[in-house]
């Protein structure tokens, strides 16, 4: 399976391990990632709040470059980028006048025929297509799948999974031998948009997420969003202060969990880059039987 790839700034910066683990897993499951040349910022952090036209033009340029590769699918692992790109497609498809305005602005041909895909759907498809990949070490842990707010919303735009109770990540985790838990904060906001402006509020929101996951017996949180990861992992000190208690639960990217199950080492998957130590989790006894991915 061959797809266009737009990493976005997080994956080459604060979320390098997401990129590293995604690339490592992709090699094993025969997912060919073709990085879009000369990509630019998607405008997620402040662009879309500042100027509507700009907020469409930035993603539109990425889409136009992706179209040039001739690939039908564009994988956008960062959920903030994913949301911006898919929203742009939605808005411009509905408004031809706006589309031509944007096309003039970016000075590139824009057909909007590329499918913007998130990491969950692409991984699922690639793993199913590559029937040969086998689980070397089942990821036998109780996990809380944390989707965050951007992957599934707004439902009419992204049209992915059930907006209030998504299951696609849970299914992926089940496929690698993990036990996804039924918990209440799957799509709750972690407050990423306010992480600099109102840190103490964000810490409170994150604390509730961690609290419910721990209370239900999760050994790790699984996420697919660099923003969520940054908040829940890097802000752990603030969170503990807000909650008045400590949390040892690590937060892993979905690709890292899959990588471990496929037999990759922690280093290859960038697990050492996390603030919260994944060591104790990895040290816990795991079964070593081989399970077929699709079973």
């Amino acid at each position, binding site marked *: 399976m061959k797809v266009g790839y737009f990493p976005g700034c997080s994956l080459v910066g604060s979320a390098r391990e997401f990129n590293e683990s995604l690339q490592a897993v992709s090699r094993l499951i025969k997912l060919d990632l073709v990085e879009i040349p000369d990509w630019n910022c998607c405008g997620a952090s402040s662009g879309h709040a500042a100027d509507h036209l700009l907020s469409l033009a930035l993603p539109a340029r990425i889409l136009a470059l992706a179209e040039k590769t001739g690939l039908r699918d564009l994988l956008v692992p960062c959920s903030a980028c994913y949301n911006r790109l898919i929203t742009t497609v939605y808005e411009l498809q509905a408004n031809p006048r706006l589309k031509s305005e944007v096309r003039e602005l970016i000075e590139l041909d824009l057909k909007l025929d590329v499918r913007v895909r998130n990491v969950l759907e692409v991984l699922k498809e690639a793993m199913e297509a590559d029937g040969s990949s086998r689980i070397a070490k089942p990821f036998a842990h109780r996990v809380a799948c944390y989707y965050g707010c951007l992957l599934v919303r707004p*439902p009419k735009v992204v049209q992915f999974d*059930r*907006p*209030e*109770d998504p299951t696609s990540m849970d299914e992926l985790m089940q496929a690698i031998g993990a036990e996804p838990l039924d*918990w*209440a904060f799957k799509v*709750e906001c972690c407050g990423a948009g306010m992480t600099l402006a109102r840190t103490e509020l964000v810490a409170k929101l994150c604390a509730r997420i961690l609290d*419910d996951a721990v*209370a239900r017996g999760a050994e790790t949180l699984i996420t697919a969003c660099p923003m969520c990861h940054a908040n829940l992992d890097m802000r752990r000190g603030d969170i503990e202060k807000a909650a008045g208690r400590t949390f040892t639960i690590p937060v892993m990217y979905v690709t890292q969990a899959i990588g471990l199950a496929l037999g990759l080492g922690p280093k290859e998957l960038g697990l050492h880059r996390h603030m919260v130590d994944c060591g104790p989790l990895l040290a816990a006894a795991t079964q070593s039987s081989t399970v077929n991915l699709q079973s």
Partner: protein
Amino acid sequence: MSRIGVFVCHCGENIGATVDCAQVAQMSSSIPGVVHSVDYKYMCSDPGQTLIKEAVKEKKLTGVVVAACSPRMHEPTFRRACAEAGLNSFLCEMANIREHCSWVHEKGDQTTQKAADLVRVLVEKVKRNRPLRPIQVPVTKTALVLGGGIAGIQASLDIANAGQKVILVEKDPSIGGHMAQLSETFPTLDCSQCILTPRMVEVAQHPNITLLSYSELESLDGFIGNFKARIRKKARKVDEKLCTGCAVCTQKCPQKKIPSKFNAGLGMRTAIFVPFPQAVPNKPVIDIENCRYFKTGKCAVCQKLCPAKAVRFEQEDEILEIDVGAVVCATGFDVVNTDFFPEYGYGKYPDVINGLQYERLASASGPTLGEIRRPSDGKIPETVVFLACAGSRDRAKGIDYCSKICCMYTAKHAMLYRHKVHSGKAYVFYMDIRAGGKMYDEFVRRAIEEDGAIYVRGRVSRIYERDGKLIVKGADTLLGGEPIEIKADMVVLATAAVASPAAEELAQKLHISYDSYKFFSEAHPKLRPVETNTAGIFLAGACQAPKDIPESVAQASGAASKVCGLFSQDQLSREPLIAAVNRTAPPQYSSCTGCFLCESVCPYRAIERETITTRGGKPIRTIARVNPGLCQGCGTCVAVCRVKAIDLDGFSNSQLYAEVRALA
């Protein structure tokens, strides 16, 4: 050759001040076919009308044009005058030179010229009018009432008490509908069953009412006064005539764990069952899906024990064909279930229930005998959260409308809970309180002020279970959007009232229109609220839109009076301005090509297929035919017909053509 009379009215100064009426009469006299033309101060006055009548007789007029006010004002007056003089009333037309001319233009030649033009248009029209007679249609004086809820019961009783025959069809084994499920009713808190059951019994005993319970409409054909209904009487597997209602069968049936629909899934029933003790008719039905005998061929306990030998396993559905003159559709509504709400747990928490389930909990005849006990463990909840607008007014859920009854019943629920559990806490989340109605707002105030229900203005974003409690997360928007969390023991969702699942199919059987939510459409939202666009079919109750009991009853009585009005005549008289397909000499028989492109434009389904046969019955061709009983005269088919095989009396092709040419 036409002999047309033109009568120009001054309407005192109203026309005369701006239009030179004498000149209009003068100009009209030169229109070919006009043999008489006069002006007069008040045409509608007695002397004015006499002027017309005399001219009709003396000049042997074949048509009359009165140039005066709007035909919406005085057309009946002048048509009556013509008829009295012996001229067919449809040979009289009015030229509107007041509302459309003298009142809207300044005095001058151009205004006079316009009045003369308008007269000329109508002269050309009236030349092509033909004498018509009002259409007479016989009336079958039996009403079909669909649905035996409170609306259907009320409509049936009203019609029956007026001396007309009624056939009441109910799909369930008993009449009563949703109202029979309710505990107490707002705003008086009288017991729902106590006020309903006497009515149910009255229906069963009324000599003019034939009750067909456990039956459904298969099809309806025909038109106002002359419908043919086919009704499927589903097999009860019990001979209603023999059964005495002793209930031995329902007590002894070994299959006891079937969720009871009447108890909204909170109680259990047997496979042979009567939905509730006060059911009418109080005769059991065998649910063959769950009956051990029908599943395994063994058991038949009911049959063995029945003292009246009334159980009939071999009984089949029966189709009844009935002639009726009018239909009252009172098929009611449904509420969405808790599994409609992913954010509230997709129905997986047993203690998140909907309003109807709560009614059963609060009802003395319900599974807990009226004690508020939560479904999961039967404990009395200490904190109950009520959510108004669960689904209603929520675009994301595809339900834009207000379900109308929830504000009131939620207040009632909170009140009943506080009456029954004095130490309990009742929270109500609401968007805004819609308590318009007699004693309604007072009722809500009572819930808040006297019964201590805690009203929180805000919506609930999520409900989840934690440590045996239901965590209800919401916001209090009156206190600056402060997020709040309530640890509840039970949550009641006032889930949206929606059209019943079979509504669309039924509407198609009845040929009535429905809105995007599948609620049936009334003929006019303000002025014809109980009629449908199909003449002779009326609406009552919540099948039209969510409604409470008094509204449903009022509409049912309205529908009943419409039916009685219809039945007060032996024949129906209708304006004859309707369309017809032409007939010509053989071998064509009609210029209709039989393409039937007109069929779907007709809002009244008046276009039928008619096969022309030889004398020996051999089909020659199939052409369109307009059913005169159904046609309302809109003329949309006329405009669609390429060959002009359909024409419309009063607005015929030759008339409209001539009217335009009159302005050349």
